[in-house]
């Protein structure tokens, strides 16, 4: 198993009730599988359109997750 850090921001942090959590995934897990598991753990997240990042880069879902990676789940950005 690999340990990754999962980050939440703004609305997703409010829904998850935390800004950061560590999660374990099997080796060679794809990003979309990992994100599905995260949403499963915090089901209210799925009420929003979500964006995902792996290591500070927008994820397309195909990425293979590695030990120590930083994943993030958030809603559409609204800076400016």
């Amino acid at each position: 198993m690999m340990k990754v850090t999962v980050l939440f921001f703004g609305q997703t942090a409010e829904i998850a009730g935390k800004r950061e959590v560590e999660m374990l995934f099997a080796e060679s897990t794809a990003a979309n599988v990992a994100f599905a598991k995260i949403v499963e753990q915090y089901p209210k997240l799925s009420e929003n359109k979500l964006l995902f990042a792996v290591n500070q880069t927008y994820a397309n879902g195909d990425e293979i997750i590695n030990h120590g990676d930083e994943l993030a789940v958030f809603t559409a950005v609204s800076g400016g």
Partner: protein
Amino acid sequence: MKETEKRQDFCELTTKPLNVGEIARRIVLPECGATVTLDGYVRQWTKGRETLYLEYEAYESMALKEMKKLVASVRERFEISAIGIVHRLGRMEIGETSVVISVSAPHRKPAFEACELLITELKRTVPIWKKEFYVGGEVWVQGEQPQS
């Protein structure tokens, strides 16, 4: 020359009040004659509803990465000399600046175009979120979806 110019670019996040003039003047270079600056700030009235204040938060490491990508891609497309982007985080009162984007160039037209594109793309791609506090409530402002 391209290298010299690039050293002038900056992308920053801060919780301190922004000084729009100071940011705009930091990118003045000898080959430039014009700087176009967008000063984005907290609007009090939106369609008859009163905003009290805003709170901004960011995924800071990714926001800086996305801002730098944005700067690199806009640089490629326009005859401009330097770009400065500073976004403030935390609580901001009415009229307080949340973002400043400045673009300097030998001639003004590409500076206008680049500055407008930068703010449009920043709002679409840089992971920053704002929560609006109004009389009787608060809401996370819904942004646009980035197309990847």
